[in-house]
């Protein structure tokens, strides 16, 4: 059972006469007509009509609303009779109808919780349920043998079958494997050479340490985390608009990985950085605050389809808060709690109430009753952005961008841009728009469109704006008008902002348990808290009351949640992370279902190893680099990847870890290594992403007009609906499903097509050929040898030299032949895998 599906069925019933929504329809009426007297501060007759809670609480005369019964509701009686609003214009008929419909058809919280509820919960949260393997804190075991402690656990299992670890991989293979795993780049020929001949017994350890100290470590491991966060440079709304400044979070993650920030702190800052530094919204963050706020970009990376439509947003608000809750719990605890949105979890001991307890922590960030706009075109500024400017400058800038002129300017520019686009579309479709009246019709339509959107994929090259301007003079006129009218009023301040999460207020709207996940069916109010099954039955975790902390600028909820998640004895957090780290290195986790440590998931193949890793990791201060280093120093990791036929037959999935399996490289690593070996790769770190544009064949690719196209893939713009074609072919996720914990490693013909025909491959193989020819001073044979050392970290075999010669000879021009051979090298399996 899932998500809003259930919302859908309940709403279907009401289709023909949809009941009014409190926030979008009822609240504005109350705000306009009643709140002047009945507000939180001006509480006449002790009645506060400024919020849903206030409405339901009633006033001095008791309840003002009887669900389903307008005639018995004081609110309706006063309004209908015209007694209220006192001394003001009565409600219009339409407004009255909305109120009446709402009382009659709206859904209201069931405010009493029956005793049966508690009994039902006790049946789910049983002592046995608490004993599920992953709910019990991990315990360290003594390694059952000699040698590296990780190997001892693995070897014991292998020995039970009469097997052992395979021999260590050859040095070049090992270094290549290591380099890809730690940095996502291939080792250089000299490094391969020096490692191959290094007699130092610490030679391998030294390479591990050196690669972990490289700043490329953070770029590669940061990307793993960004997959979990569901990082994207676009929002995921209808037009998939750009998410400005999001890249600062990406850079924060890379930096945190490179600085080896302890994992517990890494998690706490991302969930609640703003609260830990007690950031005061609206102020210029100091250096420490900026750092903490950047981390909370994690919470802002969720898909958010709230767009510029004026109403009917409430379901989308809930979608965002549901997603951030689900994704975070999945990422950190390896539990899919989504089912509990609609009902108690069918398989795991997770109560529906648990879901909303956890969700309540995010309520103050994504408050459906006080929504912060996701983009500039909609809602009040500054929305999701923290302005990183002195307060007076920030205030001035806000004034400048949010005043009527600025809004009008944005609208005027949008209309003009849309006019170009629609003219262009008309011409492309062969429509005759030479008649000014036809064009006026188009412009009128655009003006009348309440949810006007630009076509993000508009191909401006076919009928460029300049050509349109030459043909249709009104475009120039409009453009000049805009320039003249707004020239003086243009803002002069360059904004500095970052995307962060903070609590909208210390008293966010209440979190209700939503019956069947339907926000129109709120049940009892739920207080923030944690999963019952992981909580102490005798002294449950109680979140701090922010009212008791007048010095706080926040609710303290996410802080409390993150502290609970990173408790040393939390049974899941460390286990889930060490398992992910294992998966990044071996392709599969010790628990194969990396996102599901519940009953529907798989059990660990090596439970003692997993637990010992988890406990030791926490004992070492949640030190991720320590953890990675321990694994990399094991023989389990260093062993050969070749498949032994007997073991392959008996254990094809490598559950017993009898080899280190060969793994196809991730999309980014393939692209980066192509650029690297061809000498094109630019190592510039961080900053705004390199933009993408549509190629003539329809796919998107990095655009030289929008940045340096030779940067690492991490720095390309990740767009949910405009994925870079080459990366998409190799399973780079589009984050349409919020996040992706584990990359697919598919084998598809589109990959072969990309390696044959994609412009990237042509560009890199050209440069590669030039590079090796130059380095070999024009000697083709030497150039081929150089290419093998660069791309495959080894010398070519005799057979391969002959193949190269033969391939090159087929071309009229040896340089072209060499390029062809090098393209084949980049397209071959040796290049695409870490062995």
């Amino acid at each position: 059972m899932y998500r809003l599906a259930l919302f859908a069925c309940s709403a279907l019933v009401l289709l023909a006469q949809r009941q009014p929504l409190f926030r979008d329809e009822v609240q504005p009426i109350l705000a306009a007509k009643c709140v002047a007297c009945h507000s939180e501060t001006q509480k006449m007759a002790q009645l506060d009509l400024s919020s849903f809670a206030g409405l339901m609480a009633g006033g001095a005369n008791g309840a003002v609303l009887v669900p389903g019964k307008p005639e018995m509701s004081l609110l309706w009686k006063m309004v209908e009779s015209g007694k209220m609003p006192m001394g003001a214009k009565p409600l219009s008929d339409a407004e009255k109808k909305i109120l009446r419909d709402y009382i009659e058809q709206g859904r209201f919280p069931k405010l009493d919780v029956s005793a049966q509820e508690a009994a039902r919960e006790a049946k789910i949260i049983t002592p046995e349920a608490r004993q599920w393997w992953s709910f019990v804190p991990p315990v360290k075991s003594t390694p059952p043998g000699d040698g590296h402690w990780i190997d001892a656990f693995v070897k014991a299992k292998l020995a039970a079958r009469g097997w052992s670890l395979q021999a260590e991989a050859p040095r070049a293979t090992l270094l290549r494997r290591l380099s890809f795993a730690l940095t996502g780049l291939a080792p250089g020929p000299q490094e391969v050479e020096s490692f191959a001949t290094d007699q130092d017994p610490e030679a391998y350890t030294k390479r591990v340490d050196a690669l972990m100290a490289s700043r490329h470590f953070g770029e590669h491991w940061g990307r793993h985390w960004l997959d979990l966060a569901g990082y994207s440079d676009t929002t995921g709304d209808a037009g998939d608009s750009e998410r400005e400044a999001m890249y600062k979070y990406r850079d924060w993650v890379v930096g945190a990985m490179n600085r080896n920030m302890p994992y517990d702190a890494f998690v706490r800052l991302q969930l609640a950085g703003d609260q830990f530094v007690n950031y005061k919204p609206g102020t210029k963050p100091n250096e420490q605050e900026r750092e903490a706020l950047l981390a909370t970009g994690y919470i802002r990376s969720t898909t958010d389809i709230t767009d510029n439509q004026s109403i009917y947003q409430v379901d989308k608000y809930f979608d965002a808060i549901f997603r951030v809750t689900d994704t975070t719990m999945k990422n950190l605890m390896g539990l899919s709690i989504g089912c509990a949105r609609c009902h108690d979890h069918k398989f795991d001991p997770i109560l529906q109430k648990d879901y909303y307890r956890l969700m309540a922590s995010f309520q103050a960030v994504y408050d459906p009753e006080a929504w912060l706009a996701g983009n500039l075109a909609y809602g009040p500024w500054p929305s999701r952005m923290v302005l990183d400017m002195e307060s007076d400058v920030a205030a001035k800038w806000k004034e400048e961008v949010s005043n009527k002129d600025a809004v009008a300017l944005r609208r005027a520019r949008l209309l003009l841009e849309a006019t170009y686009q629609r003219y262009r579309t008309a011409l492309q479709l062969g429509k005759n728009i030479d008649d000014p009246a036809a064009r006026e019709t188009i412009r009128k339509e655009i003006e009348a469109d309440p949810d006007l959107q630009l076509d993000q994929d508009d191909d401006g090259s076919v009928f460029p704006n300049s050509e349109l301007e030459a043909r249709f003079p009104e475009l120039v006129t409009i453009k000049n008008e805009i320039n003249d009218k707004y020239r003086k009023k243009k803002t002069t301040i360059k904004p500095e902002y970052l995307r962060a999460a903070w609590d909208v207020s210390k008293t966010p709207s209440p979190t209700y348990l939503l019956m069947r996940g339907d926000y129109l069916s709120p049940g009892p109010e739920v207080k923030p808290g944690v999963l019952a099954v992981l909580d102490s039955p005798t002294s449950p975790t109680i979140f701090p009351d922010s009212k008791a902390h007048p010095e706080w600028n926040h609710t303290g909820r996410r802080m409390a949640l993150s502290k609970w998640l990173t408790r040393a004895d939390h049974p899941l957090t460390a286990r889930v992370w060490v398992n992910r780290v294992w998966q990044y290195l071996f392709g599969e986790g010790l628990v194969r279902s990396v996102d599901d440590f519940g009953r529907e998931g798989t059990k660990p193949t090596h439970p003692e190893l997993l637990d010992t890793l988890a406990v030791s990791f926490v004992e070492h201060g949640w030190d991720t680099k320590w953890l990675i280093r321990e694994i990399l120093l094991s023989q389990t990791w260093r062993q050969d990847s070749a498949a032994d036929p007997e073991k392959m037959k008996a254990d094809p999935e490598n559950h017993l870890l009898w080899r280190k399996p060969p793994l196809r490289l991730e999309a980014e690593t393939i692209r980066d290594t192509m650029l690297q070996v061809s000498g094109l790769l630019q190592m510039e770190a961080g900053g705004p992403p390199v933009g993408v544009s549509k190629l003539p064949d329809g796919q998107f690719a990095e655009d030289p007009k929008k940045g340096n196209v030779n940067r690492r893939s991490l720095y390309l713009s990740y767009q949910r609906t405009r994925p870079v074609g080459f990366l998409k072919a190799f399973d780079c996720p589009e984050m349409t499903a919020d996040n992706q914990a584990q990359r697919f490693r598919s084998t598809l013909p589109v990959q072969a097509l990309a390696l044959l025909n994609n412009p990237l491959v042509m560009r890199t193989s050209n440069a590669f050929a030039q590079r090796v020819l130059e380095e070999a001073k024009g000697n083709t044979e030497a150039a081929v040898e150089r290419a093998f050392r660069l791309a495959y970290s080894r010398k070519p075999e005799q057979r391969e030299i002959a193949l190269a010669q033969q391939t090159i000879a087929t071309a009229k021009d040896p340089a072209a032949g060499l390029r062809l051979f090098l393209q084949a090298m980049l397209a071959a399996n040796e290049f695409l895998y870490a062995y």
Partner: protein
Amino acid sequence: MMTRREMLATVAGGYGALAAETLSANGYNLRAKQPHFPAKAKRVIFLYVGGGASTIDMYDPKPVLTKYDGKPAPFQIKGRALNGSQQVMASPWSFGRYGESGRPVSSLLPKFTQVVDKVAFVRSMATDRIDHSTAQFTFVTGRGFSGFPAIGSWVAYALGSENQNLPAYVAIESTRCTIGTRAYSPAWLPPVFGGTVMEPKPEAPVYDIQRPEGISEAQQRQLLDTVKQLNQKQLREYPHDPEFEARIANYELAARMQLEALQVADFKQESPETLALYGCHDKVAGQFGKSCLLARRLVESGVRFVQVITSSGGGNGWDTHSNIKGALPGLCHSIDAGMTGLLIDLERRGLLDDTLVVWSSEFGRLPTIESNGPRPGRDHNPYGFSMWMAGAGVKAGVDYGDTDELGYAALPEFKVGHSDIHATVQHLLGIDYQRNTYPFEGRQESLVGVNPARVVKEVLS
């Protein structure tokens, strides 16, 4: 010089006995699979009209509207705007009755009148989403949010493909819709089940299908051969890892795909009469017409699910909030020839017997005007609209359901949602829509999920 075919034979011959197939993660592939029960339809062409087509001006005349034309509606009409206009606007177009079934078609669709007998209308569609993005997500994924697999992905997952040289699921964007690539995204289903974008462009119908400029056929042949030679090393060193073999086989597959995709997108073999039938040369109707023709050629080649997407035509979008009188004729003109030609052409080729054609929009438009002014339009109407199906297993010439006298809301007893259509389409393909599931986040997910859904048997033969 070798022909392309000879070259492929040479290349393919070297790959040994391994059956060429597409391997996705976890061993998912596109091999044709048996349906759950005997299927009426083998393949689907899904015509996706994004933006909200005004079906009351196209297929569903409501004579009562004339009575109220310019006057307030007799009951409250809700659009998106809180205080939306209540002023009824009769359809500005005349309707005639056509075919043996004598069903009404407006003057906007003169060609469609020829095929009205071939289709079954569902005239009582309703959805719970009122804005484009959420309604379009519902339209093709069953959920009002991004992040769920599209119907074509579910079908490809269940049935695979009958042609391993082409994708199982193709999306043709005659024009791009509001939700972009998410209209054919596999979401969390393995990527092999995602919609592959194709365009009716003979030179570049699929990404990366065309040889790069300056690379001759001979050079590419050499390239393939060299890659094959280089790959021998892994075959020797990893003889027991099928993945390496599969990857080698994929080059063969890619080469065949290159050939076949270019062939399928090449309309040279189509007669002038056929091109005219689809309106291929018409300035306004050409793009959609060519997309429909490509769709026919694809299903003919064994592609399982083709989704033709359009959101505008004649220089206007289907989202006719204003100037519906000016815009709708061009919009209808843009699809009339394509969809009509498709049905005629499929039938005369004997393909309509086992090909299902589905036409729908995410929602319809209200019988009222959206705003006063010289060029009124109609607002979104999720409460009642029409869609049609034709071909395999569909009872031609029947209607199911109705809306109220104004064409505003579906009559409750007949209400059909997008999930019902999803169930029906799968049913016709021999798929038990409740058994076509995939494990996701600890659950067995399906296209309809927990939505109430039923097969609309009333329109099935």
